[in-house]
């Protein structure tokens, strides 16, 4: 094939020359070119190697149906494989490369696969790689996977970002061809809000492949003017480069807008793709039709193309696909191609029409242009090695079988047309099963199960004029369905082709030629594969698809499905409608994963929560850690200090002097209402209803099954105002739980709840010097031990900022929690640090906080794991016997009280090594035998280095643990294999009498 640029015509800007490379070879094209048209214009015959046999492949189509010309674009992190050259807009500097070849496109070692092609038939893998042993597939799999696939994705992170939009409209028009433009116009004229989406960069669809003038303008000039008029109304939003890929329930459609693929790089702030979720009241589907090829010997040689594509390249891009073209057609399409090529000065060597009686006007026009026409003939085989060099034509009998005379004609471009298939993918996705129209020889949209209507080719329009009229009607009907009144003033542009086409002779395959006849070019599925599937009993079209992979490639069988199904129908000797079609599923064309992910990547993968003190932590060099969605300071290492050293220093300072930590992340719920005491008594296992104003109490909540749900403190701030704190991780869960109880279980209780987790900034000041620090900066309350007792809650001020102070200790030291409204948080924090300087105050992070609570034996998330009871945790005393509470009944089940239940214990490392987190606790016999399943006695829940004790310690849950203090066990990590001897002790490692916190 020797494609070349025509001197005239086309919708390209010859003033704007663009440079690009293909496999490193510099080439040029023009603004308005696709990569495919530019490659053709540069005479590039082979553009790819086929999937299985590595056969040479050339450009075959001109749109989304292209099965062959898959290329890799760009380099590095932006490299994208498997891009259809027909859908790639040319830009200056574009770098494209062929794929599935080594070492080069012209000389590909993989082509040796062709020698073994007799073995590589359908089901080859299933039959060949199953033995000799049961696990043989595991061995073969890695080699097969290495050999399979098309192109290679970049392993680098995608540097681009993607966007998402939600859109509502009265009418969504899919396709901006003649029918779509007319539908948009009539719907907008009626006052509808219209979204007009089209996959091409410019409006016009099939009009772009026409040479006729509309209202005296070229089709592109006319459609651009039309779009400008429509968008000026403010009622039409036009989305070019946007493929509506899926039709879902409730008239919701998915679309992808390729925002910046036509630039070398996205411009600043510009996403690469934008995903649209569109909720349309009505949809007009004006998706057009795709041309069906013919299946014949060597039909995959570069130079074999769809007839309509050859016409498109000539008329839209001013590119002749060859210098001497042979056309084989079953319908009028071939004539239109031949006539336009002849007008463009391209030699048409022969037009073989499978019909015996072509339309008289077309036949006369062809004759007038000296185009040799053979009626009742078609293509038997293509000839050539690297590209098509000849076409063997044959006459056909009445059954469509070759007979009689055969003729070989020299050619470098063989254009074929087997008819047209309406693009009914979206209609089928909307629920309607495609219906076969035997008269037209086409699958048409089935039952309309959602709010859409067809216009144009999928509505059965046979001419551009009829498509326009259908579009007008569909747009008006859609507007009417939206409660609007259509106007009737719109007229068709002058010059729109109104010729009715002649009939199509149904012909799918021409048998008898020598060479492989491909049905699915992208997946290398041949006519022989279809026959084999039939012989082996895979006769359902769905089975045929899966056994042969017909239609399973990236093009989803746009050029192959109907032919493959027709061949199976023929083998089964049933009509095509009985064979049916496979199910059409989204997406219509491939959708980038980036577009589906949208902004939910990187820091947007999930939102982060920041405390009011966040900036301060970061500014002071805190090592931050994500805890759930929260950002929390792990520790504050000094210059040259390791994280471990910082954690130990912070913990030691709290024990010896004083420390300050951010506890803003704790869940906080404000509770009001006359029934609040009753409600609190029901949800906590211990008494809360009698809590006095100005006091706080530690409380435990159970689930209805009796397991511990959450713990925290309850503060009674005022007579009718409580503040409940929850664990950080369970804040949302507790709120939901309480709201459910009030709404569904106890609606008679007058209690209101509001989450105030974000309202309060909280910090805990802990250590023997904490009172002294507060005494220097707090006003409005006395702080001595008699005036401010443990569990007291007082309102006060710190430098004018209102605060609530509660004397609570998580660390086991004398400690207070200080809450202030979030806007004052940072000021109060800084004030406390400043005031504490003489006392040696330091900020401490989450790690030190955890270490201190483990030393003290306080439980937290790892112990409240949903499998423990209050008694397991040594909190059985909080199960009130004087009132009823949620979870009480099931918490008192026999099994919940068994002595052998896991109970909270302390562990001390026996060899001075850290105790592995999550380690199983094994006795010496189990360690010795190590025969799975291991008989674990319990597990390590919270390990740490106890700075006050000077040893590695842990909290653990051990069967019958309280009776096993002093026992030696092994903490064995199933993840790391570490084994550390441990001694079981009380979980209260530090100040078990509580003397320090009550000091």
């Amino acid at each position, binding site marked *: 094939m020797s494609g070349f640029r025509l001197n005239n015509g086309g919708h390209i800007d010859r003033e704007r020359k663009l440079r690009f490379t293909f496999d490193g070879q510099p080439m040029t094209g023009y603004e308005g070119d696709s990569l495919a048209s530019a490659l053709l214009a540069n005479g590039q015959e082979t553009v790819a190697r086929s999937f299985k046999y590595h056969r040479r492949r050339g450009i075959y189509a001109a749109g989304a149906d292209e099965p062959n010309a898959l290329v890799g674009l760009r380099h590095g992190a932006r490299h994208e494989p498997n891009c259809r050259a027909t859908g790639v807009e040319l830009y200056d500097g574009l770098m494209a490369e062929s794929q599935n070849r080594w070492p080069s496109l012209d000389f590909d070692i993989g082509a040796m696969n062709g020698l073994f092609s007799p073995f590589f038939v359908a089901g080859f893998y299933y039959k060949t790689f199953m033995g000799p042993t049961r696990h043989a597939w595991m061995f073969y799999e890695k080699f097969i996977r290495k050999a399979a696939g098309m192109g290679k994705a970049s392993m680098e992170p995608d540097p681009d970002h993607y966007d998402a939009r939600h859109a509502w409209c009265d009418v969504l028009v899919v396709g901006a061809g003649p029918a779509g433009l007319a539908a948009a116009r009539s719907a907008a004229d009626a006052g509808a809000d219209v979204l007009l989406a089209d996959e091409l960069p410019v409006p016009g669809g099939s009009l772009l492949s026409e040479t006729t003038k509309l209202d005296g303008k070229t089709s592109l000039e006319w459609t651009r003017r039309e779009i400008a008029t429509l968008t000026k109304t403010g009622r039409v939003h036009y989305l070019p480069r946007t493929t509506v890929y899926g039709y879902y329930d409730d008239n919701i459609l998915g679309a992808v807008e390729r925002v910046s693929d036509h630039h070398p790089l996205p411009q600043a702030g510009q*996403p690469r793709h934008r995903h649209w979720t569109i909720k349309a009241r009505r949809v007009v589907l004006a998706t057009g039709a795709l041309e069906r090829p013919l299946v014949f010997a060597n039909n995959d040689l570069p130079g074999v193309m769809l007839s309509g594509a050859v016409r498109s390249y000539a008329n839209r891009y001013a590119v002749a696909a060859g210098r001497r073209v042979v056309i084989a057609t079953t319908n009028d399409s071939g004539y239109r191609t031949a006539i336009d090529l002849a007008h463009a000065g391209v030699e048409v060597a022969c037009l073989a029409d499978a019909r015996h009686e072509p339309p008289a006007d077309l036949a006369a026009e062809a004759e007038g242009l000296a185009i040799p026409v053979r009626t009742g003939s078609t293509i038997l085989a293509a000839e050539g090695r690297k590209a098509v060099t000849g076409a063997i034509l044959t006459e056909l009998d009445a059954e469509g079988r070759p007979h009689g005379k055969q003729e070989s004609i020299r050619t470098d471009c063989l254009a074929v047309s087997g008819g047209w298939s309406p693009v009914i993918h979206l209609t089928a996705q909307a629920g309607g099963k495609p219906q076969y129209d035997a008269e037209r020889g086409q699958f048409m949209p089935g039952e309309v199960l959602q709010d859409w209507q067809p216009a144009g080719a999928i509505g059965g329009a046979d001419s551009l004029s009829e498509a326009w009229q259908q579009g007008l009607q569909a747009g008006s009907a859609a507007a009417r369905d939206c409660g609007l009144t259509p106007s009737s003033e719109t007229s068709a542009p002058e010059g729109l082709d109104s010729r009715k086409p002649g009939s199509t002779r149904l012909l799918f395959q021409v048998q008898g030629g020598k060479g492989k006849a491909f049905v699915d070019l992208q997946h290398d599925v041949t006519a022989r594969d279809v026959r084999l599937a039939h012989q082996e009993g895979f006769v359902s079209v769905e089975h045929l698809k899966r056994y042969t992979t017909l239609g399973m490639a990236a093009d989803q069988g746009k050029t192959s499905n109907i032919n493959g199904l027709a061949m199976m129908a023929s083998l089964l000797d049933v009509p095509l409608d009985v064979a049916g079609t496979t199910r059409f599923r989204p997406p219509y064309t491939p959708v980038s994963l980036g577009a589906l992910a949208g*902004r939910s990547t990187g820091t947007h993968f999930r939102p982060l929560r920041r405390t009011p003190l966040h900036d301060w932590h970061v500014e002071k060099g805190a090592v931050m850690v994500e805890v759930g969605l929260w950002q929390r300071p792990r520790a504050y290492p000094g210059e040259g200090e390791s994280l471990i050293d910082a954690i130990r220093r912070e913990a030691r300072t709290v024990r010896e002097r004083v420390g300050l930590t951010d506890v803003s992340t704790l869940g906080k719920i404000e509770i009001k209402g006359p029934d609040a005491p009753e409600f609190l008594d029901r949800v906590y296992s211990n008494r809360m209803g009698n809590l006095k104003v100005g006091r706080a109490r530690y409380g435990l909540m159970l689930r209805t099954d009796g397991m511990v749900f959450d713990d925290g403190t309850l503060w009674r701030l005022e007579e009718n105002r409580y503040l409940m704190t929850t664990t950080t991780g369970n804040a949302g869960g507790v709120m939901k739980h309480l709201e459910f109880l009030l709404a569904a279980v106890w609606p008679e209780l007058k209690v209101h709840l509001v989450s105030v987790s974000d309202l309060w900034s909280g910090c805990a000041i802990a250590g023997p010097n904490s009172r002294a620090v507060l005494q220097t900066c707090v006003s409005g309350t006395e702080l001595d031990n008699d005036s401010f007792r443990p569990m007291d809650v007082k309102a006060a001020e710190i430098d004018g900022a209102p605060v609530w102070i509660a004397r609570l200790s998580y660390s086991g030291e004398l400690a207070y929690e200080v809450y202030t*409204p979030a806007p004052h948080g940072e000021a109060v924090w800084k004030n406390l640090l400043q005031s504490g300087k003489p006392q040696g105050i330091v900020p401490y992070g989450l790690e030190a906080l955890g270490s201190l609570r483990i030393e003290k034996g306080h439980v937290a998330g790892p112990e409240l794991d949903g499998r423990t009871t209050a008694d397991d945790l040594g909190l059985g005393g909080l199960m009130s016997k004087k009132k009823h509470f949620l979870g009480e009944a099931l918490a008192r089940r026999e099994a919940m009280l068994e002595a052998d239940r896991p109970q909270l214990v302390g562990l001390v490392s026996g060899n001075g090594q850290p105790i592995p987190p999550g380690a199983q606790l094994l006795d010496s016999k189990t360690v010795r035998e190590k025969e799975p399943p291991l008989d674990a006695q319990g597990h390590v829940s919270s390990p740490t280095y106890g700075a006050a004790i000077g040893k590695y310690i842990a909290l653990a849950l051990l069967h019958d643990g309280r009776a096993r203090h002093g026992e030696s066990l092994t903490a064995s990590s199933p993840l790391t294999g570490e084994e550390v001897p441990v001694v079981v002790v009380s979980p209260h490692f530090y100040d078990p009498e509580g003397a320090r916190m009550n000091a």
Partner: protein
Amino acid sequence: MPEAARTILKRFPTDTAEAAGLQLRLERPHNLLQCMAWPGQKDALAKAMEQVLPSLAWPEPGQLFPLEEGGSFFSTAPGSAMLLDVDAERAARLVADIPMETGSVFDQSDSRLLLDLQGSGVQEVLASGLIVNFAAWPDRCVAATMIEHIDVTVVRWHAEHFSLLVTRSYAQSLWDWAYETSANFLARQAG
């Protein structure tokens, strides 16, 4: 805006996203009160509140009611409504004086921030994250929904002015989203 709130907002420059057709601002509301009636007591609570705000009428869920005394009253759920930006003295009276037998008033002024978006591009920016049909959503309407997994209360003042109420801890994440989406919009405007 109170001084303390401004300190918290220092990371949110008020003019960085300002450009033709779009302006973003993140600020603390002057005040925000959550008013909750006991079941069947909505009218009683409204009547009690009228002592402080005579022009008050309890809005239906989804509606926003502008108050003659200044500020707005809107509802996102049956029996529950929020007062936004009433004057400080009235707000304090409401919190203190509403009788417990009619319902509860919670001061939420410090728990949320207000992301204000104005300009002709607002709907396009919001459509990146909000699943709302703006055309079917009249002015002075409110909805409790989510943007990028963040709970927000959206107030539509008019077609080119929206506010998003967001809890403080999520405010920067929401700001980041709004800022980047706005940059996107501006790039699109620039062609």
